[in-house]
């Protein structure tokens, strides 16, 4: 393979991995706090894309305003889902919450089919994202750079919230030990709501960027990116924000490189991603950056 092709593949991998990372962080945050794998996360991602789509189509908002509206509304939906579906089960066995999450996922997908219709819709890609930048023969869509920048901005914001604010301190406390945190006077329900809001808001950002990169949205679009992001989160160490970031990039690059080096296996790309999941669960279940958490009694 020529260097040109290699760097083209690498840039494609980074561009895909950045999106996986953004979605994976939401998974990881909710898991870190509630020990709940929120399987509806991919569908929240889908809602984020649709809200931005209708924002631009019906209300003719500029793309950045649609993005902000989408983040806010999706964050709000995230809170609603938690209050409606997960909160009543807070003290139930974890498996109940997990099954509920799968139920919420199906509910959102089918709601999407009814409300938005099953036909795929073309998503508008703003002109500044539609330019092609050529560096030594490697052709990159300008969206790739912007989406990395946008991802970085939201990550800095996220790290600031988690490590520099009182809310973040609360989140870390709840994630270490929910009961003790409650005894120390932390409003656990509020912290959980904020976590869902942030996780869902990031899913909305991911959804909009994804829809601009692959400009076609349908109500089932969240399933595969959601599963891939889940793999990325487990790969990096679920519960760890840095791990989700790392896992996302590794998975994105690995998927692209598999196809690049073995084009005849390109149809098995998803199988390969799941193979990574199985291997990591066998070899290092805590993931690359995860720490062992003792099961709560």
């Amino acid at each position, binding site marked *: 393979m020529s260097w040109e*092709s290699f760097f*083209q*593949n690498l840039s494609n991998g980074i561009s895909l991995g950045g999106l996986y990372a953004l979605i994976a962080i939401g998974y990881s945050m909710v898991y870190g706090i509630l020990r709940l794998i929120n399987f509806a996360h991919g569908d929240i991602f889908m809602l984020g894309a649709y809200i931005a789509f209708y924002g631009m189509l019906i209300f003719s908002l500029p793309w950045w305003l649609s993005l902000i509206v989408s983040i806010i509304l999706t964050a709000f939906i995230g809170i609603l889902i938690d209050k409606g579906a997960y909160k009543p089960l807070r003290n139930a066995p974890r498996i109940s919450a997990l099954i509920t999450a799968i139920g919420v996922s199906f509910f959102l997908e089918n709601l999407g*089919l009814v409300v938005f219709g099953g036909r795929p819709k073309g998503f508008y890609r703003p002109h500044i994202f539609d330019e092609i930048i050529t560096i030594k023969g490697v052709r990159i869509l300008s969206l790739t750079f912007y989406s990395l920048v946008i991802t970085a901005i939201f990550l800095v914001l996220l790290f600031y919230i988690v490590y520099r604010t009182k809310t973040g301190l609360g989140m870390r406390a709840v994630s270490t030990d929910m009961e003790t945190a409650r005894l120390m006077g932390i409003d656990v329900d509020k912290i959980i709501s904020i976590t869902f809001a942030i996780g869902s808001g990031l899913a909305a950002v991911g959804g909009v960027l994804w829809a601009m990169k692959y400009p076609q949205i349908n109500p089932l679009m969240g399933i595969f990116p959601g599963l891939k992001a889940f793999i990325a989160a487990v790969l990096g160490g679920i519960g760890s924000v840095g791990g989700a970031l790392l896992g996302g990039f590794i998975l994105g690059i690995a998927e*692209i490189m598999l196809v690049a080096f073995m084009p005849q296996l*390109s149809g098995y790309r998803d199988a390969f991603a799941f193979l990574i999941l199985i291997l990591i669960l066998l070899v290092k279940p805590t993931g690359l950056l995860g720490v062992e958490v003792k099961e709560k009694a």
Partner: protein
Amino acid sequence: MKRSIIFVLFVLSLVLITGIAFAEDVVKIGVIFPMTGPFAAYGQMANESLKIANELRPQVLGKPVKLILLDNKSDKVEAANTASRLVEKEHVVAVIGPLTSSLSMSAAPILEKAKIPMMSPYATNPLVTQGKKFIFRACFIDPFQGKVAAKFAIDYLKIKRAALLTDISQDYCVGLVNFFEKNFKALGGEIVSKTFCKTGDQDFSAQLTAIKAKNPDLIYMPNYYAEDALIAKQAKVMGINAALLSGDAADAPEILDVGGDAVNGLYFTTHFDENAVQSELGRKYLEVYHKKFNKAANTVGALTFDAYYMVLDAIERAGSLDTVKIRDALSQTKGFEGVTGTITIDKNGNAVKPAVIKKIEDGKFKFVTIVNP
């Protein structure tokens, strides 16, 4: 209170009895379409035209036709479930649909076993009807379409080096690529790259990077419109100048919406174009379609219309609602002048008819040429 409940029950049972009595006086035809999921666009287009067909010809053997539409959600398992339901619960005399090859293949064994004729408007894979007596289709099959594509590439586009990008989760795409490859090589062409994808994939950058490294003149990618639009879009970003050639699954207006500028120049082999319509029935169909929907008629709809008419013709010729007699009549369909050309059903239940080649230009479908069988 009690009395009112008894009254309600009485009324309900009356409704039930009259309902059953009514049911005996109609001809029930089952319809299985993907109304939701990735192929929803086809399902909706087919349903529009089916309604027109039903309005133009609402009766057969002097009885009204009752269409029972079930959604298979673009899913193979659901396609089989809906077929079972039509057999066991609805007792239909014939089935129109499912639309695509994989979905038809999962419904066909059930209908074959129940001896109920099935007429798929749009399933082009040869295996759909192979070895089956009760399974028919209104479209031509993939070997013919693959051959036409190869001939078109060599004779019309004058190219020799092609790359293949196949959706391996669809029997339809795999079949088309195989027939294209065979004929293309036989005509002196060379296949320089083979890559694969899956329905629902959104990122094709790695496959396209591999293709670009081989610098082909043509990418043959007979996949569904959703994938094709994204492939075209990403190929443009990669600066790939090869011509793009697809199959009839690209023939959905959605490809224009999603693909935008990137799909300009895409060629595809297909079943129907308004400019290729020659029959009386075809002109009538176009007239009603334009009046009703105020847009250009599409392929899936035209084929569904022909499927409905062929089934009704067969029932008329059979002169009874006996499913075996309907099957025999269907298999003898000859020279039926439909919307999509003159159709003869061969001994395998396949339609023998001409193919159309179209191109996307300035965001519109444009008729290129007709290739006869």
